[in-house]
């Protein structure tokens, strides 16, 4: 239950409600144990966007600066949506992969733990 106390009625909309994105939705992506990227990045994309575009374009553009990127064996990658295990289908859309507004996709690359195994 809220602990907010106010002098008057208090009703405000969320700044990031999905309707503010004109048909797109927010998606966050994080490469676990590669903290050289400091934090996840965010995209606004239509829900029809194929998952392959996330990997081949957006993730590649950002993460290929890291020497581990070329070493990834994509068959062993472990995916999560938030804290839930998740198996994305490359050819399906975000929506058909069950990815909603403001979901956080996390992926782990076993055996690749960043520069000199530091997690960076």
């Amino acid at each position, binding site marked *: 239950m*809220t*602990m*907010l*106390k*106010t*002098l008057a009625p*208090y*009703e*405000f*909309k*969320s*700044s*990031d*409600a*999905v309707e*503010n*994105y*004109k048909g*797109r939705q*927010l998606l*966050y992506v*994080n490469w*676990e*144990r590669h*903290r*050289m*990227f*400091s*934090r*996840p*990045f*965010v*995209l*606004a994309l239509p829900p029809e966007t194929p998952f392959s575009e996330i990997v081949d374009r957006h993730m590649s*553009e*950002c993460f290929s*600066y890291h020497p581990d990127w070329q070493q990834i064996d994509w068959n062993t990658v472990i995916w999560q949506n*938030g*804290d839930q295990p998740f198996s994305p289908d490359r050819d399906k859309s975000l929506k058909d992969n069950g990815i*909603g*507004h*403001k*979901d*956080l996709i*996390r992926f782990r690359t076993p055996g690749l*733990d*960043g*520069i*000199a195994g*530091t*997690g*960076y």
Partner: protein
Amino acid sequence: MDMKVAKKLGLKERYSLMTRDLAWDTTFQKMADVFPQTTYEGIKIHDWDKWEDPFRLTMDAYWKYQSEKERKLYAILDGFNQNNGHLSVTDARYINVLKLFLGSTPPLELMAARGFSMMGRQMNGAGPRVACQMQAVDEYRHFQTQIHSISNYNKYYNGMDEFAHQQSRMWYLSDGKSFFDDAITAGPFEFMVAIGFAFEYVLTNILFVPFISGAAYNGDMAAMTVGFSAQSDEARHMTLGLECIKFMLEQDPDNLPIVQRWIDKWTWRGTRKLASVGMMMDYMLPKRIMSFKEAWEMYVEDNGGALFKDLARYGITIPKCFAQTVEEKEHVSHQSWIGFYMKPGATPFHTWIPTPDEMDWLSEKYPNTFDRYYRPVLEYLDAQEKAGNRYNNKTQPMNCQVCVSTMKFNEPGDSMEMCFRESVYRGEKFHTCSDHCKEIFDNEPEKYVQTFISSHQALQGNCEPDGVDVDAPDYRPGARMLDYWRLDERATGDFNGSDDQKNFAVWREQATKN
């Protein structure tokens, strides 16, 4: 005939005559209508006269001492500027500390001035009203003098002229803005705990003492004198914050759980807000006085520890976040610097990789973490830069819904893992950086759903310079972010090769020969 000489009044009498005795209770209007804000938060006050300023500072004495401080300050500033003092700093990297400080601190001093002006109006008792008025004037003075002292640098170095425009727009200034916006939109008692107590008493030493001492150590007399002048007011501010806590706790036992929740909340929010101070101390000062970790131990663990031990007699316990802050002191400055280093095109100050001897200093100061986690990546990035492949991450960040920091902190107990927390409110997901921020969100979600997150706003098309048509078919959100921020490109990028670096070298050379 004997002359009767009026005896000079003692401090206590003078304080009593000049504060409480000048106040009155209203009779034409009900006191509750004149002071409508001091009851709705649930804090119960029975006797406002129990609040007394232990400095017993009256307005006449206040003006006398403050004007003396101003005279000293401006005399030193004039001397520093007339003598080309900017060329006496250790090296031009130091000036980036001032750029970071200018964007992040004076605008918040102004918010503090607004907040304390409101407190000076809303508090029922004359004691707190007078003390809050003084603090409001102090904060306004800090806002002005900080800008004045740095304005001389603005004549010579890039990236300082648009700090006021950038304050409410730039990604890395959102954490401080959110901190004060949250405090000033709370009730008066929560504001007093937030700013007067958690920030001024528990945390402000971490910001100002190392900043001033660091400025002095790096030859910046302008920042040193303005810092000292401001800091001489801080002891009074800290006292006001502590008196407020004691007053609430002594007035009614029902106040304890409310006060405790606010202490927990604001100690954490302040800790997050100060993460960038750590990187200033450890990475940005060419000559370093002490590590952020050492400062944290001295001013927060020891001093804060003494405070909470003392407040235990009221039933107050140490803030819940304390253990996590102790763990994080080994990490936050490094994590922050990497976060800024990778965005060379998105700040009005330069970043760089520490020199080998600076890295050795970091190893010595952080024996548990620096070599294990941070040195390898910094050395890798250094080699990349030297090979012409300087790191430049062009993506937009994910931020915490409460503290608005980028989501860059590790899971407590596991330095390799990122920490993510999530809440769902009215069907929408909200992400936070820690258990403490999540708890703050969950306690008052109506408030934090409104958070301004720069990257999200840009993606909505709300961060564009004038004249951009966000409905045009070829519109790309964020493509003109630099214009929106009014970011001077000369101020961006790595320090190596910057105008500041070149100009400083030339001017210093000119200063030593004809």
